[in-house]
């Protein structure tokens, strides 16, 4: 099955197929009465809802801004007198950043913050590049002498944070995969084992990510006592993995234990050995369920990651959001909202990737 990357494939991948398809028909003039309804439903309504979202956001943000501003002006009036209050009102009205109240940012401000973050990224990467060039010669010498090379320790840019977060979530996801799938298979195969570890699964499944983080911290702390390197990343991805693996574990066990009786009969009639039976009949038939579990695991991992990064002080989007919140600069709130959208979009992409893989391995597909 060879697939080229076409516009159609890409839009189908991100779930916009109906939208683009209808739009194409409109421009090709192939629209009849039925298509008009479709056009309304698939093009006009989604666009309208996006527009509505931004309008509500914009108006809401303006209102909140107004309330905060009035509060500040009243405070100035009481504490510093009418002259100062008038000065502050003029300052706020002029849009000067130094006197703006701290409120929900409007879409325009968020867009501005997003561009600031990108610009900041280019500055930092240029900086980094310069640093690497500058230290190249020194590092060569240091390596030759058996010393550690000098690494760039400046602050990471927003894009670097995204990158770190994605690495962490994949590390956690792989950990979950390598723990949950084999255990799930073993549990699924043996009803005895299943009933004996059921309590454990039931109790640990609903535990909050925060508690998992603390548990992992207690254990990893002991192991990394003598190491000088930062263990935040290790703690972070192990917690993410442990917290998100349950969906895969349960789904794998269920898939393996509920294989169609017909397939089991086939395995018996063909006299497949136990290992053959597992690899040639049981696993392929439970693959769709395993992948459903993995898809849930990846979504949960991404959701939990942000909270755990924040707690673990491990670099990434979670830490970025927390630091911006602590920072309290003029555009901090805007940056947090920008990060929120980025987090949402990446979560969506991860889910789509898993869905595509799931469709590929599922033998029930209709095409």
């Amino acid at each position, binding site marked *: 099955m060879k697939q080229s990357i076409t516009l159609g494939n890409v839009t189908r991948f991100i779930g916009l197929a109906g939208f683009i398809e209808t739009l194409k028909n409109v421009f090709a003039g192939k629209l009849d009465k039925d298509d008009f309804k479709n056009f309304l439903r698939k093009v006009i309504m989604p666009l309208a809802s996006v527009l509505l979202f931004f309008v509500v956001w914009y108006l809401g943000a303006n209102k909140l801004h107004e309330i905060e501003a009035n509060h500040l002006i009243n405070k100035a009036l009481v504490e510093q007198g009418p002259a100062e209050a008038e000065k502050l009102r003029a300052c706020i009205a002029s849009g000067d950043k130094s006197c703006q109240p701290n409120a929900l940012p409007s879409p325009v401000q968020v867009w501005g913050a997003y561009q600031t973050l990108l610009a900041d990224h280019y500055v930092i990467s240029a900086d980094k590049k310069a640093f690497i060039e500058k230290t190249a010669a020194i590092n060569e010498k240091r390596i030759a002498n058996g010393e550690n090379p000098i690494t760039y320790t400046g602050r990471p840019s927003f894009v670097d944070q995204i990158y770190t977060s994605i690495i962490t979530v994949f590390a956690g996801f792989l950990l979950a995969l390598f723990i949950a799938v084999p255990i799930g298979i073993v549990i699924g195969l043996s009803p005895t084992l299943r009933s004996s570890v*059921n309590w454990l*699964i*039931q109790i640990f499944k609903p535990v909050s990510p925060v508690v998992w983080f603390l548990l992992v911290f207690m254990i990893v702390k002991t192991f990394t006592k003598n190491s000088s390197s930062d263990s935040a990343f290790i703690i972070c991805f192990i917690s993410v993995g442990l917290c998100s693996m349950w969906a895969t574990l*349960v789904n794998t*066990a*269920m898939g393996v*234990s*509920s294989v169609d009786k*017909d*397939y089991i*009969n*086939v395995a*018996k*009639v*063909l*006299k*497949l050995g136990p290992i*053959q039976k597992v690899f*040639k*009949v049981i696993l*392929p*038939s439970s*693959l769709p369920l395993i992948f459903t579990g993995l898809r849930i695991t990846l979504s949960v991992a991404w959701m939990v990651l942000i909270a755990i990064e924040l707690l673990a002080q491990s670099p990434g989007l979670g830490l970025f959001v927390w630091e911006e919140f602590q920072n309290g600069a003029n555009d901090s709130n805007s940056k947090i909202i920008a990060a929120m959208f980025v987090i949402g979009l990446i979560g969506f992409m991860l889910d789509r990737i898993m869905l595509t893989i799931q469709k590929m391995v599922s*033998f*029930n597909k*209709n095409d």
Partner: protein
Amino acid sequence: MAYLELKNIYKTYGQGDNTTEVLSNINLTIEEGEFVAIVGFTGSGKTTLVNLINGLLEPTKGEVLFKGEPVVGTSHERGVIFQNYSLLPWLTVGQNVYMAVKEAFPKKSKSELQAIVAEYVDMVNLTPAINKRPKELSGGMRQRVSVARALAMKPEMIIMDEPLGALDALTRGNLQDEILRIWGKDKRTALLITNDVDEGIYMADRIIPLRPGPRATLGPEFKIDIERPRDKTALNDNPNFKKTRNTIIEYLMDIGNERKSEAKKEYVLPEVAPKSFVW
């Protein structure tokens, strides 16, 4: 010594007060090279009987003897064609057959095995579809794959559990001929379970009705003395065929009526709930 022998077979499901006796006092002998058909109503325990013979189930009482040896578990000597095809949906036609062949002849090389697969897939006229998955095939084609898979293991006995039950009449006719052709080629012993009297008469040497369960037993056997190869269209005018057909149908109708009159008494249904999967 009979080739396959069932002696006083009883099979019950469930335990304690909830036991249902599905089969009761089944006695059956099949000689080598014979084609025997067992005809019965749906739900009369046909599949249970077939699973006892192929070794998927064990009788509660009595013995199943295959070539004088008691049947313990499944064996490559008894090939099974399942009612619902039971093809593995993630494998192609060729792979489904290959898997069976590989198990049956573990010592053969890969190319030899491939040759056997090709031969049997060709025998059921599915060579063009060898790389397709079961999902892409029609019901008749799927059942042909199932036939190829069972036969490619070169079993000494073929056990067919309503193999053509889900097919339309025309496909059914074609497949009947194909199965007969294959059976005629090297005269393997065959046991056909069916709910179609005509099919039984057309294909088998002997027809044995299964009286409906619970407590199903085998009825008196009917010998089919029609010369092979049988011609389906000519068969309709054959007086012998008509007579046998009418006798068997009358017999089955009688048991059906008996069952209906018996059914007036009220049964207390067991309280069954689906097995829950609690996690």
